């Protein structure tokens, strides 16, 4: 944002560790469905500092979206966070907050960008109004200044001719334009944490790069933390400071980006990397895939979730789940495997 908006007073609490913006410990999510109890997120712990980007990668259905929605406490009906989880955001214990206090944090300190721009906007409301709604709720912008502020927000996210688009309805905009509007809604109060749930999956590659560059620039300007959920490893490699690999509702490996991509320890991470199609591969070579199915989230296995698909599996893998522990020489690199790669093996 080029100009500073007068913000309403924040829900203030002393911030004990200013460098850590978000600390999540032992977060588990259960969803009651007709088919039974689902375990989409299982004992997830991580922390994130301001100005950093955490990439979360993993296949479809491994709990990435539910993790995001649990962080902002917007789980689907029937979903709940298992007791014992600790979520500290900006020094506030998110688990203890009332719905009313939450609504003062959502949208201004913590915002989310949704996966599909086609459904994330109200089809019968002008886009300018949808952005103005957030400003109206969280900033003390005067009614007559809202329009200018909205135009400013749109310019910020790279909308060409923003003044021309504020009076459009979502169906009059293209996918990229709509996603820019969705991002403008999320960013207009300059949140401290942006949760981007596959923000570019529905967009084509050029728009994708454009929007991710915007994220990087805005992060540099305002120092916000970003949780970037993606299943595109290249995006995670280029835009995240650290990457967490999720599998079957658990984080199986978590490391600074460079370390993860050069010295992965978990077999799943390597299989995931191996499944990326390569341009320099010889013609005619089949795409490499990971054999088997991801674990059933309504009936999680007792042991390691990857045991059935792992080529290094040993009997203990089926009996006990490996804990997420730090590497011997580097505590930032955590992985959950009894027999990690690099220990005397390739």
């Amino acid at each position, binding site marked *: 944002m080029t100009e500073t908006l007068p913000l309403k007073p924040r829900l203030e609490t002393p911030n004990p560790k200013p460098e850590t913006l978000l600390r999540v410990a032992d977060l588990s999510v259960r969803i009651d469905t007709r088919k039974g109890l689902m375990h989409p997120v299982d004992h997830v712990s991580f922390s994130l500092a301001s100005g950093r980007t955490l990439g979360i990668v993993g296949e479809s259905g491994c709990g990435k979206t539910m993790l995001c*929605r649990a962080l902002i406490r917007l789980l689907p009906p029937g979903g709940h966070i298992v007791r014992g989880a600790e979520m500290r955001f900006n020094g506030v214990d998110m688990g203890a907050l009332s719905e009313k206090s939450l609504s003062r944090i*959502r*949208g201004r300190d913590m915002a*989310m960008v949704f996966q599909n721009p086609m459904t*994330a906007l109200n089809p*019968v*409301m002008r886009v300018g109004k949808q952005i103005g709604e*957030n400003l109206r*709720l*969280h900033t003390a912008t005067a009614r007559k200044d809202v329009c200018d502020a909205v135009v400013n927000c749109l310019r910020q996210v790279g909308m060409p001719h923003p003044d021309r688009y504020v009076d459009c309805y979502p169906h009059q905009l293209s996918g990229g334009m709509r996603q820019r509007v969705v991002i403008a809604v999320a960013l207009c109060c300059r949140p401290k944490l942006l949760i981007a749930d596959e923000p570019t999956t529905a967009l084509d590659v050029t728009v994708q790069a454009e929007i991710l560059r915007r994220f990087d620039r805005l992060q540099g300007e305002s120092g916000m933390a970003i949780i970037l959920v993606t299943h595109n490893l290249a995006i995670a490699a280029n835009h995240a400071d650290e990457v967490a690999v999720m599998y079957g509702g658990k984080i199986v490996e978590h490391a600074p980006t460079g370390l993860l991509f050069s010295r992965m320890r978990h077999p799943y991470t390597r299989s995931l990397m191996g499944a990326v199609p390569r341009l320099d591969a010889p013609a005619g070579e089949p795409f490499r895939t990971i054999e088997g199915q991801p674990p059933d989230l309504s009936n999680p296995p007792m042991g390691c979730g990857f045991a059935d698909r792992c080529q290094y599996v040993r009997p203990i893998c089926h009996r006990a789940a490996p804990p997420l522990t730090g590497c011997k020489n580097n505590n930032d690199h955590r992985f959950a495997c009894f027999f990690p790669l690099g220990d005397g093996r390739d």
Partner: protein
Amino acid sequence: MFFRLLTFWMPLTWLLFVTLCTVTAGWMPMPAPDIMDYDHQNALPGTVLIMPETTAGALPEARSRVCWLGTDAMGRDMLSRVIIGARVSLAVGVTAPLIGLFIGGLLGMVAGYFRGVTESIIIGFMDVILAFPGLVLLLAVGFYFGTHLWTLIPSLGFLSVPAFCRVSRAATLQLAGREFVIAAKMIGNNNGAILVREILPNVAIPLCVYGLIIMALMIVVEGVLSFLGLSVPPPTPSWGGMIAAGREVLGEAPHVCLIPATVLFLTVLSLNVLGDTLRGWTRPQ
């Protein structure tokens, strides 16, 4: 183009024409709908009536007039009765669904959005209304409070509540899971604001289209109730009452029954066609 003329402009014109007639009926140069003339019973449409010389000094040309739609079994002017009768039919047909639309729409939105116990209570209540025979309710209301417009409209409105409630609940259920509603919650809106700003504008479209179809139904229901003597009492004309009265002279003067029936048919058809067209237009986002 022709299709649109047939499915949109023609029904719309007819409905506007009927509405205009009911509004301006008081200023139209036509006899009152309840003046009986036993010299000209069951006159065919277009009959020229010669008035008996009762008014002294009246102009000669004022002594005769054309009955464009004939007269009924009591010699009352059909045109005048059809136009005045439209008032009752439209009052019932428009007001009763509006009552149902507001109450049912609101309850349905609340049920579909909050789910849980609220939904169970509201849906249970609707099931009770649906299980209760409507005719018995109308008979009871007619018996205790009399049969006139101000008892008919609320009771018909009450009976149409469950239908609107279901439409609005179904639409809300579908919308509540959509990302833009979650997004509205995400930026810190409370439930009331989400219902009014996000859900209501989206539910209003299917609800209004459905309302048009229920309007057509209510006009027919008013006609049916006339046969049972549950609609407005006789001196006041209504389309249903005219059809019921004309049935007795169907053999010798079919126009007494067929003219109001045709007008009612066209109105109901227009409402249905228009409702269908609008539903088709509003379906895609």
